[in-house]
């Protein structure tokens, strides 16, 4: 499964949402994901991929697609992708 689908899969479990209906370009709050829920979700994303997203980078993440880009960058710099 590619990175985005793994993220969507995690998000659908965390927020009890239909993975197929998750629009990667939609703002997180439009998906019903508030800031606290997102911090908890990020913890699970970091565990899943074995990467760390900095506090600074975290502030710039507005959509699941943003998140995918950060995870992909972190994986690449860690030599995992």
């Amino acid at each position, binding site marked *: 499964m590619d990175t985005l689908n793994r993220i969507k899969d995690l998000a659908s*479990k*965390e*927020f*009890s949402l239909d993975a197929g209906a998750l629009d990667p370009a939609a703002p997180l709050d439009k998906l019903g994901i508030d800031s*606290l829920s997102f*911090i*908890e979700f*990020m*913890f699970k994303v970091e565990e899943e991929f074995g990467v760390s997203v900095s506090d600074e980078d975290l502030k710039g993440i507005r959509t699941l697609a943003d998140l995918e880009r950060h995870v992909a960058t972190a994986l690449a710099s860690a030599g995992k992708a």
Partner: protein
Amino acid sequence: MSERRVAVTGAGVVSPLGCSFDEFHAALCEARPGIRRLSPDTAQGSGVQVGAAIDWQPTAHFKEGEAANLDRASQFALVASAQAIAASGLDVSTERERIGVYWGTGLGGATTLETAYKQVYGAGEWRVRPLTVVMAMNNAAGSNVAVRHGLRGPFANFATACSSSAMALGEAMRAIQSGRADAMVAGGSEALLVPGTLAAWHALRTLAAADPANAAASCKPFDKRRAGLVLGEGSAAFVLEEESRARARGAPVLALLTGYGNSCDATHMSRPDRDGQIRALRAALDDAALAPDAIGYVNAHGTATSVGDVVESEAINAVFGAATEALPVSSTKSLHGHLLGSAGALEFGAALLPLLRGVLPPTAFLDQPDPACKLRHVPKAAQEIAPPRAVMSNSFAFGGSNVVLVAERV
């Protein structure tokens, strides 16, 4: 007496004796025990052998992701309070500013805290779940109830150990009497049967060891053979409403909550004090404007410690005088264990059994009453009676916090 009287219109229970108010009452009627041996992992990790644990399946009540983000104490609270609200028929979608939540818990999210500590101290890993704080905080359970139902009225969380949820009920009654709210969801929850917390209790040397012949009979309040308390877990919730409002909407009025006594021993952190208990008992009777002989049942705090049961018996005798001889008293902790912060609310629910069904819940396994506990016991099995006018429930906590509640028949 206040002009605004307070009706109990709904009850919900998640307990070692069943997960509804009716199941709980049925188990008390049958003296069906909820105490058993703890799992080998928990026992080995804590030194504690018995407890009253709930066979709990979170996914039967919550979506998977949701359950993972709620401490066990909050899960219990949400289920019990939803039962109570449903049973009351209260419409919580309107006048939400007039409906509040007063909750009680001793330790809050013990499981969440323990999980985080294991990570930090056990695994040497400082990365813990971001939700740890909001899952573990003491007010999490009550706040989750308020959030779930959108209840925007007065909110408070009481953490006075074993009297926490009785205090929540008493103060919720005051909130309605004073006009600060028209309805309140009040109760408590506790879930601390985890090794770290159990080990701390074990160190106090107040917990009973497993009865070698029958683990279910390990908690023996008022019995000569009593060896200490047995910890339990669960939640009980009630909907309280201003009586005329409840009547006007045709609500099922289970009882009236008419007496609340609150005192502090101010003598010792753990040793109970007879005079402190007497003050709370008298205050509750005065509040209800009832003479002692109007009380037809007392659900005792009765933890089965050597000192506590005697002190409580003396306090009851001092307050009820000659009426003590005919006053049925029992400790249902013999069946459901000690739910600590949730005990007061659960036992208030047990005290309603004589009012609602004309049944006195028993002190199970009471074969050899201690002569130092001079009470009219309800030993071993439930007894049928004519429903009394009023009942009482005692909660006497570490820290010297004493709460007594009085409920009256409708």
